[in-house]
């Protein structure tokens, strides 16, 4: 008898084709967008974390050490925050993953509304991030207090 394939795990593959990606839902529904840079001579990393509700924090950490406490920053304008998350959600599927660190590495980490993981790390000479990701990064930088 032919086995039923209604519960086949491979069906997830078909779903993945439709949605572009799939990952298990996280325990918390809150998502955030982490960006920043690190490495260089000192190996320090500065991570900014932006939440949809406008909260923005900064954390500076030494190489491989435990995270330093996050410092709250002045919340950026809500419209700009929403625009950044829309930009995140609109990243093309071929612009979601990149791992080309350089002496100084820039990064974007997050998750689209559909649950697609986003991890971009760039900085290696001659290996720029996709245009859409760089545009998002620039807009995120513009949110930082001056």
């Amino acid at each position, binding site marked *: 008898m032919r086995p039923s*394939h209604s*519960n086949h795990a*491979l069906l997830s593959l078909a779903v993945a084709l439709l949605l572009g990606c799939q990952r298990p839902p996280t325990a918390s529904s809150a998502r955030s967008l982490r960006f920043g840079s*690190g*490495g260089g001579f000192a*190996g320090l990393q500065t991570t900014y974390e932006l939440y949809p509700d406008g909260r923005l924090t900064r954390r500076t950490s030494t190489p491989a050490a*435990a995270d330093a406490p996050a410092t709250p920053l002045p919340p950026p304008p809500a419209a700009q925050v929403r625009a950044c998350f829309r930009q995140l959600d609109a990243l093309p599927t071929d612009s979601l993953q990149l791992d080309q660190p350089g002496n100084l590495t820039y990064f974007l980490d997050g998750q689209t509304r559909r649950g697609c993981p986003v991890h971009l790390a760039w900085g290696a*000479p001659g*290996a720029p991030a996709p245009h859409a990701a760089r545009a998002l990064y620039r807009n995120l930088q513009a949110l930082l207090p001056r």
Partner: protein
Amino acid sequence: MKTTLALAGLLAVSGAFGAAQAQTARFKPTARSLAPAARPRINATIDGARAAELQRSTGPHLDAARLSTLARPVTASSGLGAVQLWRDAASGLPVFISATPKTTDAASRPAPADPAAASLAFLGELRAELQVQQPAQEFRVGDISRDALGQTHVRLTQHWRGLPVYGAEVVVHLDGHNQPTRFSGRHFRTPSGLTNLTPALAAPAAAAQAETALRRQTHVAALSADVQRLLEYSAPQSELVVYHPEPYAAPVLAWHVTTRPNVLERWETFVDAQTGAVLRQYESSCAANGPRTASGTDLNGTARTLNTYEWNNRFYLIDGAQPMFNLGRSTMPDEPVGALLTLDANNTRPSAPTITHVSGANNTSWTNRSAVSAHFNAATAYNYYRSVFNRNSLDGAGGTMISMVRLAEDDGSGMDNAFWNGRFIAYGEGNTGFTPLAGGLDVAGHEMTHGVVEKTANLVYQGQSGALNESMADVFGAMMDRADWLIGEDVVRTSAFPSGALRSLQDPHNGGTSLSNRGYQPRTMSELYTGTQDNGGVHVNSGIPNWAFYKTATAIGRDHAEQIWYRALTTYLTRSSQFLDLRLAAIQAATDLYGGSSADVTAVRAAFDAVGILGGTTQPPTHTLPTNPGQDYILSYDTNTADPGTLYRSNTAGANFLRLSTTAAISKPSLNDAGTVAVFVDAQHRLRALQLSPTVSESIIQNQPVWHNVAISKDGTKLAAVTMAQDTSIYVVNLASGQAVRYMLYNPTSAGTRGTGVMFADALEWDYSGEYLLYDSYNVISNAQGQDIDFWDIGFLRAWNAAGNTWGDGQIQKLVQNLPAGLSIGNPVLAKNSPHIMAFDLLDANAGTNGFSVMGLNVETGAAGTIFQGLSTPGTPSYSKLDDKMLFTAFNTAGDTVVAVTNLQADKITPSGTATVLISEGKWGVWYSQGQRVVTAAKESAATAVPGLSAYPNPAREELTLQADAAAEATLYDLLGRPVRTARLQPGRRSTLELNGLSAGTYVLRATAGAATSTRMIVKQ
């Protein structure tokens, strides 16, 4: 229905097969080029050029002349009447003389004399005023000209005992009767005090002195033959002269050297012929620009001599004094070639930088201390590499080195860092952790060495290779700043780094005890950081090779150690080198330089031993898998269209056929290592699974009609698939978890970037670790002439991270980085028992219709062999159970597709004997065994595994006992991902899964306890 092949039907397989169509691409897309490297933009407002005022003098300064009338009496023999003199105020010597003849009556005038003689006589008359002892001997007649007014002008140069007196030239002007009436010009008193006219320095030595001095001022280059002809110059020209270093000072014997150091310039140098001192040097071509020197105070309060550059009356921190400077190719000041250029980011942020030259209207006021430090340190770094290793700049080719100071953070605050971005070094002004980082020589050395690494080994900035990259930067930074073994000691704030340094080669622990302490690094392999932060700990684990260098250098001296490390870096290391590779490279480098029995080699070995980088530490084990204990068969695809059967199983002699399927397939089946499941793509582009044991059954496992190929991992837990579209991705499914990801393919370049050109993947093969997926892909790239070239090649995709029990990072490595033109490779397959040995198809497009070969390759040794050549179709090879035979597809002389077999030698990559036909009217032979063996040890992360999970016995017959230290849910899945049994586990209590009713075969047990997950492969007997 397939029958056993009669012996009479055996045909010797030879190279003379029928013609067949070579593998071609499915279609031809547009090629794309790689992205260019970044360059800093200069947005300064540069002063417009204004006319330069040349104020050069080759002789006494022109001061106000004095007019005086000769008061002495005129002698009767003299032909001169009244004389008026104009004298130089400084020297008192006449610069102009007007004299009238004694009589204006032409009839009574003396007969016209030779102008030359008349001029000398005239000068003789005036010798007292001229203060020249013997004008007739000291002046030589040069050019004589007569103008339209009838006047004659006689030029004379001054000499002293046969030597020209440099800069002394006068003119005697005669009237129409050849009577001297005027004198003009400059000369010197008779240099009677200069008695020694024998030079102690020969002309070539003087020219060398001149060149040495010249190199401090301008770019000296060898002129090409064409330029030499153009300039009529092949070497410095030297002339011995009497020279007055200061106007009317005592004269010296000197060499006057004329040099053309480049196509644009001509320089005059005066070298004391007795002492060799350079008395004066100036450019005599019409230009006001060029290298200069200046002084500036750096961040440490030290006065530094700087090489600056004057361009159109403005001075820049551009060092054009180094031998690599190429003025001819430079566009000054913005694009100097072969210079050390220092720029200022003006405390602006990277997202909106304002980058300017560091420049000024004068060359004496350099107040930007960060720029002074950076500029001076750049020159130090350049000279270090040049003098110690004969390396011409960071790229080894005289490329411009750019330093940028005062770059701020993204939020505008002071940047507590410095970095190299592939194009320039950027320094921050510091914040809480550092003072302005340009103040550290080792900072400059560290960052500049990243440039050297990029152009040599180009170590990937991740994991151990990234740690080596960082270590090399620390090592050579410390070698430039040789006073200690510390990194950053001149720029750290002790409030942030209590030890007083960012890192220490002498003791990487740097006063700390763990990574929680700032500046702490591991110093031995037992302390190796294995996390993912910091790109896998590149700034952390660099402490280990750092300590190895320190130990080496303290044993044999810095000089030898740096030579060994430099040779290791530039000669032996490559992009993916690991710590072990450095050990091997350093030992070999020491052997090359100082001999195999040298103390240097001994010291290097001891150093690496001491830090735990031992021979074989990180080498993948060259192991042989245990032979699959089960019965072996051959799976093949029947090409007889009259036979409804498609997939058949036969014995290894090509007999006793068992029909397994009647489904038309478009891809070669892929089997798990246990030989119990085969997956393939049917003619409708759907994924199918074929259960092979204990009974045969077939099912569609994915019915979207989009697929082109599929492969199952050796342990049966994952599938990889590609679609039939031009899709630069591979889809991977984890059957145990039900998750799927899509990996984007790219072509890794030698520069470490992700290049384009991949069109789509085709053949797939999992390795035995379950982490890497071998694949072939069709590529289209542009060659140097801009033409599209297409080819197939083989890649390794890291699709799984066994240690983390998670998805792989998608990194790709190519089997062959730069295939020769006309060659393609594909259809990779691994040996059954040697994970480091593989076979693949090779197509030589230049070999005509029979251009396919089956190749064998030992990936560890690089040895390769041709197993069979002259095929007109891809062989799609398959190793036998013992790796002593190779199956491959071929055409017989009748043009029918066959499965052929050849014996292999013990190396598994070269043939033994003659190939023969094994299965007629067949293709895609796959040799498999139906038995269990351990091929991969999946490692679970302790942090994510279900604590204390055990499942036994394994293999099991009737029931499986489970136990865990935490409450967990356990589910047993078949290889098609269907749950077949479940159980709840209580901590510390045994539970059982009833296995009766399940088919014998391999299953996947998945247990979850909250966020923790563990999987086990279970065999049901």
